[in-house]
């Protein structure tokens, strides 16, 4: 999310304390890659990650100092994923239209392909809410801000997504 910076002296002072972007990449890069892998699949994940961090670097000086950086990055990744889905689709597809429709096809191959394939088979909204809550660790209030809707709706979508994953993906669940 690109926020315009105000050149008010007090805010400038706060801006002075912003940490080097390298520290943001170190702290959040791996998690954002997991989110990208889950949401757009392992094949497209590195492109999505690169676009996300380049956009974040561009907007970084204007980011409000009290921002939740992880939620901010996931928001950018979410928008990049929507752009990517639109570009790949034969017709422009709004996220709202896509929410409850199953994905067109599972993600082929790739590392940890079973889990990614199981995620790819979920409707986009379930896949997104699962990724943002379980992989990025965002509380549902933040997940709702990123993916739209209410926190309760986000919680239900993620619960539905987990229930569906339990049927298709069993590895790692000992009980």
């Amino acid at each position, binding site marked *: 999310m690109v926020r315009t910076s105000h050149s008010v002296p007090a805010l400038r002072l706060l*801006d*002075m*304390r*912003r*940490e*080097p*972007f*390298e520290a943001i*990449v170190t702290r959040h*890069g*791996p998690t954002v*890659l*997991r989110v990208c892998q889950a949401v757009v699949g392992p094949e497209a994940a*590195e492109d999505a*990650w*690169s676009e996300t*961090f*380049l956009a974040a*670097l*561009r907007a*970084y*000086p204007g980011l409000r100092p009290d921002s*939740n950086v*992880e939620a901010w990055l996931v928001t950018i990744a979410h928008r990049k994923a929507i752009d990517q889905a639109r570009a790949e689709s034969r017709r422009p597809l709004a996220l709202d239209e896509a929410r409850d429709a199953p994905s067109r096809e599972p993600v082929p191959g790739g590392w*940890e392909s079973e*889990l990614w394939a199981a995620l790819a088979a979920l409707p986009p909204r379930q896949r997104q809410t699962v990724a943002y809550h*379980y*992989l990025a*660790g*965002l*509380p549902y209030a933040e997940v709702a801000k990123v993916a739209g809707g209410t926190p309760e709706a986000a919680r239900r979508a993620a*619960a539905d997504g*987990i229930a569906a*994953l*339990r049927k298709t*993906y069993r*590895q*790692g*669940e000992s*009980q």
Partner: protein
Amino acid sequence: MNTTLEPNGADHMFDTLGPVDDAAQRRLRARLAAEANAAGLLDVAYRTLDSPVGKLLLAATERGLLRVAYARADHDRVLADIAGAVSPRILAAPARLDVAARELDEYFAGRRKTFDLVLDFQLAKGFRRDVLAHLSAIGYGQMESYAQVAAATGRPNAVRAVGSACAHNPLPVVVPCHRVIRSDGSFGGYVGGAEAKQILLSLEAAA
């Protein structure tokens, strides 16, 4: 972040993922640095360099070499200061520092007596900057006293200010504040510590 995970253990489904592998991270970071540079978004690039005077941090803007920092300055702190004073768009991106690193390697090996680098002096202001400009004129293996430097910059009484300018030199080694010593011939202080000053002056005396 208050992350309340469901009691049914749904989160364990993702435990099998483990950490993101190092090769992927290195690949992504290199790509980000290259793309940021091409897009004009890499305001400050940095890398470290092992040397006889310890690990040096090298940082450069698009204009030129901005900062050389000894380990005792705390590299994390130096980068945080650059983020505030110049820009927070800072990435570990060694390519921009290739020439500086090579010339420093040659200097420490005794094969280089002058640096052929474009310098960005924006971290030094006012009189301190005047002092740095003069320091670059003190040749390899030469030494001047703080009083001589003060006189050369037109402020013969500003001996302490010259010492302060040397102590805050943002580009040590390259801008040779190590060649400024006390009038009595003793080495005096140094931004990299007394031992580093000794090493540099011995290196230059031997070559």
